[in-house]
């Protein structure tokens, strides 16, 4: 049980870290990209924009 807890904590720290907004917004952006591409829109620009925006918001929250 202790190992399962440590395993889950590792992945929580790995993915969420100290700012849950990064993981959440990237998950949403990836899902939107997937949806747009499957709707025949080549949304290659969406993830870079999401990365720029997410980094800005995360820095702003920490500042």
């Amino acid at each position, binding site marked *: 049980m202790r190992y399962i807890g440590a395993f889950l904590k590792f992945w929580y720290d790995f993915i969420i870290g*100290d700012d849950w907004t990064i993981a959440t917004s*990237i998950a949403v952006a990836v899902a939107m990209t997937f949806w747009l591409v499957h709707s025949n829109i080549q949304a290659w620009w969406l993830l870079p924009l999401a990365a720029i925006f997410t980094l800005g918001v995360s820095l702003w929250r*920490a500042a």
Partner: protein
Amino acid sequence: MNGMFLILATFLAATIEGVEMMAILVGVGATRGWRSTFFGAIAGFALLTGVTIVLGNALLNIPIQWLRLLVGSLLLILGLQWLKKALLRIARPPARRQTPPPFQPMSSEKIDWYAFVVAFKGVVLEGLEIAFIVVTFGAEANQIGTAAIGAVAALVVVGGVAFLIRGWLPRIPREWLRFAVGLLLTAFGTFWAAEGARVRWPGGDLSILGLLAVMAATGFTYLALLRLHPVRTLTGS
């Protein structure tokens, strides 16, 4: 396909994937410690070898799109976390002096699972792509062994270059190194995650360079803004 031409074609294609793999390994090794990165890479190669031997040509049936989507998303999240921490620390040198965080590589007995997992994922994903190249090129010419020679040669050359620059990296200030690794992880993560979502990048693999340039410009812009409005806190380690 002529044997030499096949080796050359596989060598060139595998070099591109090898550079991506080594960029991650060298970056993680320089910032988190080489030992755990090395173990992660070895574990990745071991898994890859096992999968290649067991599956052979059936390797092409592995749903690599989903692997790209998963690994790319994780690397993108990780890259942004690293960029954030690096920018906050670079923008605030006085705080760095108050709470000195000199880099302490993990002790020789402990494994840094963070470095291990990133190295493992980088090797598995890129290595799988190299294996795909070998199987695809080799099967077409009915010479998988010959194609494998080109791929192994590419990995040896790229690995040799990575080994040579490894000693030079500690001269770079730690937070700038973290910034550079954050840029690499963000660029590769964005590229792979989007490819996993079946995006077709303009320019193919070359768009990684464009992503690096865009994220570097973004990082420097945010750094300038942070210096104009100093940050309150230092987050994370």
